């Protein structure tokens, strides 16, 4: 007899599918993972959809429709642990830009029959609707962190995921600071680690796809960005991107409105 395996479900809300694809991109680990975990529901990868309850649910995407607002309650009720993956699920994603605009106007811009479109005025993170047990940041999540999460779940321990800034990952990697060396605007000082500081390694400033770090100081960074020549409108846009709905970025953006 083999031990009972962890029953895993993967759910999708408003998103690009990229975070759940990260799971399928674990090419070397996928088959081994399927030994340790029973993938009970993962519609993108299997037409075998088993009913709940599930030990762990990975949730991708944000809440943007009345129907999804109901559905997430159901997911919560059927799940032992609920883990959100990616910027959409943890901060509302790029679609949270609507939170600062009139969504009715947007419906008319995009759809021929706006009156039949089910869309809330906001795009909100999962944690605004139900209790979330753990969050993985990023647009998309990092494969390394995803595997760490699954390994931790299998071992019944807490995942080891850093809450430091991207800057610290730059230092660890030995990448010269793009802001100091080239005056390139960079959100690294206020952005949570996890990606491995990819952008600076490619000569580019961080654009904050992992969202705000714990206790960030975006006001100080904005001052520096202003010295580098950034105007208010640009600053506003810088904080309003893939994690526009995260409070620390939303508040800093509002200061430049």
């Amino acid at each position: 007899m083999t031990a009972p395996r962890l029953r895993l479900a993967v759910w999708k809300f408003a998103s690009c599918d990229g975070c759940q694809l990260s799971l399928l991109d674990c090419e070397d680990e996928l088959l081994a993972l399927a030994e340790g975990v029973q993938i009970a529901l993962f519609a993108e990868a299997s037409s075998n959809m088993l009913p709940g309850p599930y030990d762990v649910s990975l949730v991708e995407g944000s809440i943007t429709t009345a129907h999804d607002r109901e559905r997430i309650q159901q997911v919560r009720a059927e799940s032992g642990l609920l883990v959100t993956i990616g910027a959409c699920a943890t901060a509302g994603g790029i679609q949270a830009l609507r939170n600062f605009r009139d969504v009715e106007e947007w419906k008319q811009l995009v759809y021929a029959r706006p009156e039949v479109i089910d869309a809330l005025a906001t795009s909100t993170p999962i944690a605004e609707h139900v209790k979330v047990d753990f969050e993985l940041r990023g647009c998309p999540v990092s494969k390394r962190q995803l595997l760490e999460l699954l390994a931790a779940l299998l071992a019944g321990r807490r995942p080891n995921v850093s809450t430091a800034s991207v800057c610290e990952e730059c230092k660890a990697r030995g990448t010269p600071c793009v802001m100091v060396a080239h005056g390139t605007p960079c959100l690294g000082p206020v952005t949570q680690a996890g990606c491995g500081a990819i952008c600076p390694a490619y000569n580019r400033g961080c654009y904050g796809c992992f969202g705000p770090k714990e206790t960030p100081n975006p006001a100080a960074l904005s001052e520096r960005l202003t010295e580098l020549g950034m105007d208010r409108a640009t600053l506003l846009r810088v904080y309003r991107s893939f994690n526009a709905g995260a409070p620390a970025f939303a508040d800093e953006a509002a200061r430049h409105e």
Partner: protein
Amino acid sequence: MSEGTRTIEVNYLARVEGEGALHLRIEQDRLVAAQLRIFEPPRFFEALLRGRDFREAPDITARICGICPVAYLMSACAAMEDLCGVEVSAPIADLRRLLYCGEWIESHVLHIFMLHLPDFMGYPDAVRIARDHPELVRMGLRLKKAGNAIVALLGGREIHPINVRLGGFYRAPKRADLLALRAELEWALGAAEQTVARVSALAFPDFERDYEFVALRHPEHYPMNTGRLVSSRGVDLPVTGYDDYLQEHHEVHSTALQSRTASGGVVHLGPLARYALNRDRLTPRARAAADAAGLGAQVCNPFRSIVVRAVEVVLAFEEALRLVDAYREFDLPALPVELRPGVGYGATEAPRGTLYHRYTVDQDGLITDAKIVAPTAVNQAVIEADLRHYLEPNLHLPDDTLRGVCETAIRNYDPCISCSAHFLKLDVERD
């Protein structure tokens, strides 16, 4: 429900990207409805792009789809560079093609082995196939990984690469780093040829249709990043003519915007279309693989798309090897791009077919209008037509059989419903 009426529902289409459903209604042995419904929540990209800086379009639109972000990066760059009158240098164009090869590989291989093959082999998913045929699934995973390695090296990561900018790249790779991929690409080219042989031996439904194929066509290469828009019915236009040719029509019974030709014709995008219109541009080993698989001048059985996809994987590995070998480090990874307000048009060949972007940008560099037509949005009409044509002579078959074939027929197009979120379709059934 009256006597003799059958409704077949697939409430949640599995093994497609995004959320969709299928609704079939059969009355007295007559098919009265075959609708692919999309219930992906709207994300309003065309609206949220308004007011954003023109240089942000590639990274933002990449988030429409995590499966083919490179296609969005490339089409957005093409449109903005068209707007600004920039033509990238040959080494930049080559690197972009190499990046696109990586995406074609990872996306096609994902679709072949994990999404489509289970249909033909009678399994619910690739993990289950692996229990009986571990070497087959392992080969697929290794092929996919080889594609991802290209994207990760040139793009910084597999999904939502960070290294693409208007005019080129933030950083060009070291020759040594590209050469380090070589051995694996060599293996992969051979494995891709084996894949063509394996999938061409599958049993396919006997079904052919006469399609209007549409794809890009380039003077020398099998199309990826650039080309003219051509069709099998003789259309030949620059990309700027896209809107004159394909228009979004509003279906009365739904909220769908379906793309059709000005005269109402339904067109077919994707591997079958690229192949039919560009067979003469296949690379040598890809052509040999197509010949060995018995593919003629064109393939009109949509269920054989899995074979054509595999041929394109051979082509992508062959091209990747050529580009890696020819690569020499160069100085300027991106050309300067100066704003020129106006309208820019761009189209490239996403794995699923032609992806069109059009932007209007003002004198401050802010986007004032955006139009994005994902290939699945265009293919929806042809998918529904396939379903109707397949079903009509086969209505006597049991529901389960019909359901299975219909799901396979939809997956023939590798529909990416996440991409198509702005043509959400509502199902209204009236008596």
